[in-house]
């Protein structure tokens, strides 16, 4: 070992104990760190982004393309021009893409527990609340990136919204991403098997998607289906997206935002609570 190396041992055991930063600084730093890790991993696995791109395309071009000629105009006219089924479907599939990615982001916390990495996070000097928030933000980012890839196909579906509408669509994607990641985290907080998580999530995710009105208009539904749709938080997310992109909507913006936002708040608080109580 060189002289230079020997000298530096003082770096490892300083003669003074630096004081701990205040709680807020530590937690914000921790949230950023956890988020950054998810972004690095997302970029490293970017091939997976392409893989998850296929399923929405099947819905858009095969389901949409197949039904479009039969269905004619759906959801009312827009600027004097009737909206074809594919154009109606498009915002729903953007929502679906965010929903699916966000759902499986929750598996990351189970996976971290399985491979032992979660312990490294749990013994760090930051609150568990910060850990949950960091994971939610990381998962949401992942799903918004995925949704944006679909959103970029907009010109193919006779949609040329102006900047404000695109910004609106982004905000909605973020909201859906945060909500559904929280659901995933809530399920994942106590789970020890990623396989179990996948099974449970698959069980939940399809009803959420089918009931959300991504595939069909919400007016003139049988009353039981209408009720079920109103109970699905995704319904309000898809409604907001369609509102932003095509102008068609079934609920007011306020109803959508309050319902989705309220649901997000309840679920994330519940996740934080459960995670704080987990050994």
């Amino acid at each position: 070992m060189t002289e230079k190396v020997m000298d530096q041992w003082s770096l490892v055991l300083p003669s003074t104990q630096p004081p701990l930063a205040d709680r807020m600084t530590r937690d914000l730093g921790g949230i950023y760190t956890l988020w950054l890790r998810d972004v690095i991993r997302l970029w490293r696995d970017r091939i997976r982004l392409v893989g998850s791109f296929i399923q929405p395309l099947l819905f858009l071009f095969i389901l949409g393309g197949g039904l479009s000629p039969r269905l004619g105009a759906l959801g009312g006219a827009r600027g004097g021009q009737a909206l074809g089924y594919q154009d109606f479907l498009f915002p729903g599939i953007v929502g679906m893409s965010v929903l699916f990615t966000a759902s499986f982001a929750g598996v990351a916390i189970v996976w971290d527990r399985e491979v032992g990495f979660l312990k490294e996070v749990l013994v760090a000097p930051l609150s568990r609340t910060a850990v949950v928030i960091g994971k939610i933000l990381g998962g949401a980012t992942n799903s918004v990136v995925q949704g944006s890839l679909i959103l970029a196909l907009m010109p193919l579906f006779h949609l040329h919204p102006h900047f404000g509408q695109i910004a609106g669509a982004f905000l909605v994607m973020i909201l859906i991403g945060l909500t559904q990641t929280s659901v995933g985290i809530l399920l994942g907080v106590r789970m020890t098997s990623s396989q179990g998580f996948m099974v449970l999530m698959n069980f939940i995710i399809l009803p959420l998607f089918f009931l959300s009105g991504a595939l069909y208009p919400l007016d003139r539904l049988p009353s039981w289906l209408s009720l079920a749709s109103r109970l699905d938080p995704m319904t309000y997310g898809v409604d907001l997206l369609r509102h932003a992109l095509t102008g068609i909507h079934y609920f007011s913006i306020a109803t959508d935002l309050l319902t989705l936002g309220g649901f997000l708040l309840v679920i994330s608080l519940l996740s934080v609570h459960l995670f704080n109580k987990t050994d």
Partner: protein
Amino acid sequence: MVETVDRRGHLVQAEDLIKIYKTRTGNRMAVNGISFHVKEGEFFSFLGPNGAGKTTTIGMMVALLSPTSGRIKIDNLDVTKYPHEVRQRIGIIFQDPSLDDRLTAWENLEFHGRLYGIPGPARKKRSEFLMEVMGLSDRRHDLVRTFSGGMKRRLEIVRGLVHAPRLLILDEPTLGLDPHSRRNVWEYIHTVRKEVGMTVFLTTHYLEEADGSDRVAIINQGKIVALDSPERLKKSLGPEVLILKVQDKAAFNQYLLDGYPSIMEAIREEEGGLLSFPMPQERAESPWEFLRSLPFPILEASIRRPNLDDVFIRYTGQGLADGGQGKNSGGDQ
């Protein structure tokens, strides 16, 4: 504002720690009234089989688990009241790997440094230096999944030191490593101890690892059954252990138990039908004279110095390899 570090006195003080897990089949007492002190700069070991309560004790030291009763202080800070201040003072190497293997070595260290609030320049300087010391510098930008088991362990040691802790906790640090990697990892741990006088808390079920420490607590079924320096513990058994092969083991056993109650707990059957026991302290003469006086034909005999395994058997009535209360690795959490 900076507190100065008091290098004397006790870094860890545990008093009457009890941890009871609630399970479906009732309560399980994982740690049953443990007390110990670790001095600043000391190398302190917990030696015991799987399920003895070693990892549970560590869980309480780093505030991952809350004690059912009792108290634990690190650097005079109550762990339950000041979990984050305590964690800042501890570097821990877990029993199971805890690296993100999809990130590079460097990214793992950066992640750790950021979580502990270490400013960028200090983080980088320490990481670079420690990587060099541990012989990982040329692999720093490789994904951890390409690392061997020994390299991962070394990286975890680097990571545990990046925030300049006062106490390094090693929970079975060489579990699952081949003999060469084990030696290698220990060389690095000793380097750290030598260079900075780091306080080390080790749990292990390998005798030779505990043998190198300043003091050993022998732990079994949630209790500390003996606590002293390895030398003193071994000396307490007397100077020699006899290993004999006899024809009628049962009769010989009975003879020993009747004549020398002091070695009652320490008689042990070894591989190949050999019996080993410490030289009875009731007898003042040499071991050879003792052997000659036995009213049994002796087929084979040898003498060795007591090791920690003999100590362990003496205090628990069973060998470390027997796994104490059973090899339920799932219970060792």
